[in-house]
């Protein structure tokens, strides 16, 4: 592993100031993705080497789960996934989020991996992670997945680069209309989480709106409305310790078996968590049954443009949407 300098930040402002001063700095929280990334010794504009790691675990009061019925949920950026998954408030009010926080990796990684880190982790594309491939994200001019192995790649919204966003909690949080508190040189601002992630057409070198000297400090989830339900389902190739082939998070207000309002978000299918607005629109005001649930899935995937090896994900995504929507009606 390449050596780097280390700096223990004392406050968000301190961390922002250090980032502003050091172009080759990276931020470390749990480190479960970043340290592997450094060991892989990747290099390029979208995969910069870190000369300096700025540790934000040393900032006080950044790990917490706060809930109240009026204000909703606040998650400190450094809150371990296990804490989110096991929080009684989260389990009771946002079961889909709890399940999504329980699904990444292994217990050991969920004990150190933070909720913000799960949102900020880099994509798993084999070519991006392979030292021998100069792809778009590494500043090259080629996507090796188009003519190569693409069974895990995007079926929606891929262009130039066909990564999929690997986070499990991102779809769950977007389904719950969460927002991110972003701190930077100009202070703090709120960004809706469904505007937080960006695709390769906007900027192929990164996956979020954050600038180099901005940090994700807190996640807020609105208080659940009456009759609000949520669910999360993930399909993996291996039953443990695996990234989503496809995941789906749904959150909806269900009254008398009718979908009043809600969100459907897919993971593992597009360069960003994919908001299935076609499904959301189709479900609105509909009684949830096999037909409306299947219809929601089918409409979402009309836009799918699978690659040579990943058409199976289209069917899985359709079926998962149907299963998840139906599960809300029976929950």
């Amino acid at each position, binding site marked *: 592993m390449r050596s780097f300098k280390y700096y223990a930040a004392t406050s968000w402002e301190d961390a922002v100031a250090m980032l502003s001063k050091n172009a080759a700095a990276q931020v470390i929280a749990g480190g479960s993705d970043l340290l592997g990334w450094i060991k892989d010794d990747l290099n390029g504009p979208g995969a910069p080497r870190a000369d300096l790691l700025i540790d934000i675990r040393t900032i006080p009061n950044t790990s917490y789960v706060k809930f109240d019925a009026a204000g909703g949920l606040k998650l400190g950026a450094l809150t371990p996934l296990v804490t989110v998954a096991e929080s009684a408030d989260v389990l009771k009010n946002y079961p889909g989020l709890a399940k999504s926080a329980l699904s990444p990796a292994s217990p050991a990684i969920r004990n150190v991996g933070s909720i913000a880190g799960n949102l900020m982790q880099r994509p798993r594309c084999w070519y991006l992670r392979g*030292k021998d491939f100069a792809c778009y994200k590494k500043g090259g001019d080629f996507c090796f997945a188009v003519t190569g192995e693409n069974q895990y790649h995007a079926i929606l919204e891929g262009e130039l680069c066909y990564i999929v966003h690997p986070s499990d909690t991102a779809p769950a949080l977007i389904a719950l209309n969460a927002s991110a508190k972003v701190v930077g040189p100009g202070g703090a601002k709120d960004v809706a989480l469904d505007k937080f992630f960006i695709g390769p057409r906007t900027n192929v070198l990164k996956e979020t709106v954050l600038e180099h000297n901005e940090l994700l400090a807190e996640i807020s989830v609105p208080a659940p409305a009456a009759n609000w339900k949520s669910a999360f389902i993930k399909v993996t190739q291996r039953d443990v310790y695996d990234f989503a082939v496809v995941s789906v998070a749904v959150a909806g207000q269900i009254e008398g078996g009718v979908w009043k309002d809600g969100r459907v978000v897919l993971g593992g299918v597009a360069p960003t968590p994919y908001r299935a607005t076609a499904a959301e629109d189709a479900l609105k005001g509909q009684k949830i049954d096999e037909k409306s649930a299947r219809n929601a899935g089918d409409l979402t995937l009309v836009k799918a443009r*699978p690659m040579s090896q990943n058409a199976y994900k289209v069917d899985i995504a359709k079926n998962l949407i149907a299963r998840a929507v139906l599960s809300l009606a029976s929950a």
Partner: protein
Amino acid sequence: MAREKLLGPLGESHARVDAPDKVTGATRYPGDIALPGQLWMKTLYAHRAHARIKRLDVARAEQTEGVVKVFTARDVPINEFGLIAFDAPVLAGDVVRWIGEKVALVVAETEQQARQALDLIEVEYEDLPALTDPREAMKVGAPVIHPHYANNVLKHVPIRKGDVERGFAESDVIVEGAYYTPMQEHAYLQPEAGLAYLDEEGRVTVQVAGQWTHEDQHQIAHALGLPDERVRVIYPAIGGAFGGREDMSVQIILALAVWRLDQMGIHRPVKTIWSREESILGHHKRHQMWIRAKWGAKRDGRLLAAEVEVIADAGPYAYTSTKVLGNAAVTCTGPYFWPHARVDAYAVVTNNIPAGAFRGFGAPQGHFAAEQQMNKLAKRLGMDPVELRLKNVLREGALTTTQTPLPGGVVALPQVVQVCARAAGWKATSTERHVADENLPQGSTSTRQPLATGYGFACAFKNIGFSFGFPEGASAAIELHGGTRVERAVLKIAGAEVGQGGHTVFMQMAAEALGLPLAQIELVASDTATSGDFGSASASRSTFFAGNAIRGTAAAALQKWRDEERPAIAIYRYQPPATENFDAATGRARPNIAYGYVAQVVEVEVDTETGQIRLKRVWCADDVGKAINPQLIEGQIEGGVVQALGYAITENFVTRDGHVLTPYFSNYLIPGVLDVPERIESLILEFPDSEGPWGARGMAEMPFIPLAPAITAAVHDATGVWFDELPLTPWKVWERLHERSYTPHS
């Protein structure tokens, strides 16, 4: 059934002698061992599949702070190594033939300094065309990869028995298939590591994890141009092997560094530890094979003729490919009697990672084709697959495709087939489910649906020990100490404890042979300075060879004891009956010393919407001859099944132009704790082998071999679709189940 004889040390599930230290963390693996003043070594790999080295300049690297020396091909006295042929360079000097080819070694004060100096080594390459498909590489006119191997064919094994054309003409049904089996990574817990130094007698000593101390010693000595006795190899604890440590990894390069530094007047130990990625890129893989089979049978199920072509990807160097190929040639027609057979098996040189030994050693590939063929034939004939096996399995005295009978003792193929089928509740009639359902869990918690359940059957045979004329044998020494009575016995044996429980079994057998309690046996193991050549901990041979060596040594030691020698010291070498290589034209041979026999029934659940397959239950009947330690046998069965489950379903080793796309455990998916079957039923049979110690056969590879074709049979039972390629990844399963076409994006 193995539990009747619980009186003596044999047949008793004695706890592993190495368990307390491993459980408490006291055990030291090669990477844990440190010596004062040690230097660190890092390796520069080519990361090119095929290229000529135009220029190699290590000057800047050597001037870096902390760097002691950089070694290149020029520093290797005899720059070649290999288990069956000295055809691979220790360090590449002119041409690199695969991505993991070693180009230079940096030795520095710290690991970090060595690591950073790698970046300062300047190498200029001229890329050469990379041949990565053996079917292309063996075509006439393809560029030759290695000067030793014309047409890139490393080895061709032909087998000819009877008259295949007549056999097909007399057949009522013909079944044809084309099969593919993938590369597989050993994924042992402990990545390669080692420490080298000159010992008190001035021997170049390497502490490393391997499978065959004396072969490591020999290959090191050859490369350094030293007599074998100037080199010493010691195995401390070994974190798994599965065949992956049979060829050289860090052994020679560590010895080279220490030896050359010593000549420079630097008398310091050298240590290296490979990362997981280096391990995956740096050691050989299971051979990928393409197998075409055409089988003919009579309407009553009698097999008549088989024609099979096997193409194995060897990578650029021989490693153990010719032997693996021989096994694939023998097993690709299954454990069945054939009046007529024609097999052509080829090992082909390519620019992929070298292929070599891996649990099963060619038999999993051969049996995947054979058992798929057999299950398809059963379907075609409308015959129960178990009944079809019983009609055709080899029995005592029947001539195999190499025109010789199986070796002495019971050929327990009918027994493993019947015991397994009976235990699983296999039913012959098609109106009933194959397997009794009373044990199915009530109410599934799975979110997967709709689920289809299926059952499959497969059986297999495999040799014990090294084959095809190799001069097999194993040495041991025993010292008996005491006065009027033996107070303690020291067993010196080089056999490797690779995690299988070998050392426990050795001690149990020594206790039995000497008539002593286990507590009086001391073991000195795995050091070329204290023991003679044991051979390899592979080919399911350790128990078989150790047992025979220990029995002979114990008898000699006890004789000396009776002759009042104190201590009574005996050295003995067991040599089994000789085997024969294939006849060059017909393949006629008595290739093996002994065999093990196995049959399996599996239950799978297929999610037809997602293409996911879950292995639910496995019944495995394994004839072990004599169960020395039943619990360790169960461990081998359970471990073999889970490793084969990875081979069949989850482990997808992907390369592109010779580069590995799956060098991480995050994308090379070995089964996890939730992926293992809910139940694995170990059915241990004891039909003695006439050459085996106390009748024992080897068994460590057997449970791996039939699992993949049993799974594909079960998936067919569940879905009606045959899968002829491994692994059964969800996208492949889904694609075949749906046969729906989308326009691929370009």
